[in-house]
């Protein structure tokens, strides 16, 4: 049993550059392992002497030996230290925290996954969970958007995913040799479906992207209650004590970061929140 406020040591076993500013760390327990995570949960990663930030878990949820994969984008002092942490570096880890995507609840229906930029990181466990139990789901579509072809995370994995799920990649700015789509994620999204039966959508990316995408999905017949979004706020304690991550009535470290669009939409339209 681990204390939720006490980081446990994890060692960086491998560091994989994803893009020019994003890297995936494979972390192995250097002591007691944290409890197993569910897709969509996050940890608080602590770079010793520098600080702690919330990072979604991007690894395979079927992993049983406590190993974590976390994809870090270099945006500030703490994430810079984490991003640059090479093999052997020991980091502190707390968690896993938050409600996950609840992928299980989508069984028996179609699945739409919409990822923008680094939003693909928290959704990779969804993709892997679906692939591991592919027969339990109907049509599965992944629409992923990025600024340029070089900004896609997990570029080497798409080929392995594509035989089992439909993958549509689109970029804002194409480069020479790019054979995927050009345009915002809402463009390919408008041509998937309609979904006459039950479908569940998982969205992660910048908030405006999720809002625009949810509107398209609603027009394609998916009700807001079946559209889930992952919301980023200032996570500090991870245990619903400090209040930094408050969004209206929600404390996102506990009640999120994944919430239904039915819950999120009215909150996202309040500027002060």
């Amino acid at each position, binding site marked *: 049993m681990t204390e939720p406020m006490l980081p446990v040591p994890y060692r960086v076993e491998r560091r994989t550059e994803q893009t020019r500013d994003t890297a995936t760390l494979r972390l192995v327990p250097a002591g007691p392992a944290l409890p197993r995570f569910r897709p969509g949960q996050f940890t608080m990663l602590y770079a010793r002497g520098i600080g702690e930030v919330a990072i979604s878990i991007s690894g395979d949820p079927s992993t049983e030996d406590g190993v974590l994969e976390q994809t870090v984008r270099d945006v500030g002092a703490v994430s810079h230290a984490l991003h640059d942490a090479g093999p052997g570096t020991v980091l502190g880890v707390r968690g896993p925290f938050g409600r996950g995507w609840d992928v299980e609840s989508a069984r028996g229906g179609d699945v739409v996954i919409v990822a923008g930029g680094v939003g693909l990181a928290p959704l990779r466990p969804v993709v892997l969970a679906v692939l591991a139990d592919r027969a339990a789901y109907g049509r599965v579509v992944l629409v992923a958007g990025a*600024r340029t072809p070089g900004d896609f995370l997990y570029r080497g994995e798409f080929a392995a995913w594509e035989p089992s799920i439909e993958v549509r990649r689109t970029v804002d700015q194409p480069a020479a040799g790019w054979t995927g789509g050009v345009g915002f994620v809402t*463009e390919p999204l408008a041509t998937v479906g309609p979904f006459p039966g039950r479908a569940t959508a998982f969205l992660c990316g910048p908030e405006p992207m999720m809002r625009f995408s949810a509107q398209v999905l609603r027009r394609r017949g998916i009700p807001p209650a079946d559209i889930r979004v992952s919301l980023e706020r200032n996570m500090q304690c991870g245990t619903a004590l400090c209040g930094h991550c408050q969004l209206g009535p929600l404390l996102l470290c506990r009640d999120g970061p994944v919430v239904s669009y039915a819950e999120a939409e009215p909150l996202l339209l309040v500027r002060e929140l």
Partner: protein
Amino acid sequence: MSAVDRFTALPPFSRLTPEETALLTRATREVAFAAGERLCEEGRPADRLWVLESGRVEVGTAVPGRGDVVVQTLGPGELLGWSWLVPPHRWDFGARALTTVTAAELDGRLLRELADADPAFGYALTRAMFEVLAHRLRGTRARLLDLYRSGRD
């Protein structure tokens, strides 16, 4: 069911009445393009539109010093071309088939004539086209926001 019939089942055309759909199909024929073939050229008279059934098309423009710049790609179920509806009826962008393309091709001049003769049909057609345009505008504005910008940019 032909490609002509199939595109009328797609939004936004699916909201037209049977009578309006019949007028629309009068102006429609099935076409195919080979990979690399150009569908339209920037600046030339625009007198048609396409609803893609299979394959992919890139929409682009020639930028001095940068060559042909792709602004968007379109695929099955998507509509290509609205310049036929808006004066001066010249293509704003060029389009090229990236793969073999099959499509329903609609005669823009005939559609304008039909719309002038039957304002109710004209309104329904314009509303359908406006829906597509509004969707494209939202997507374009979202791209202008540069939402995926990196902390290093």
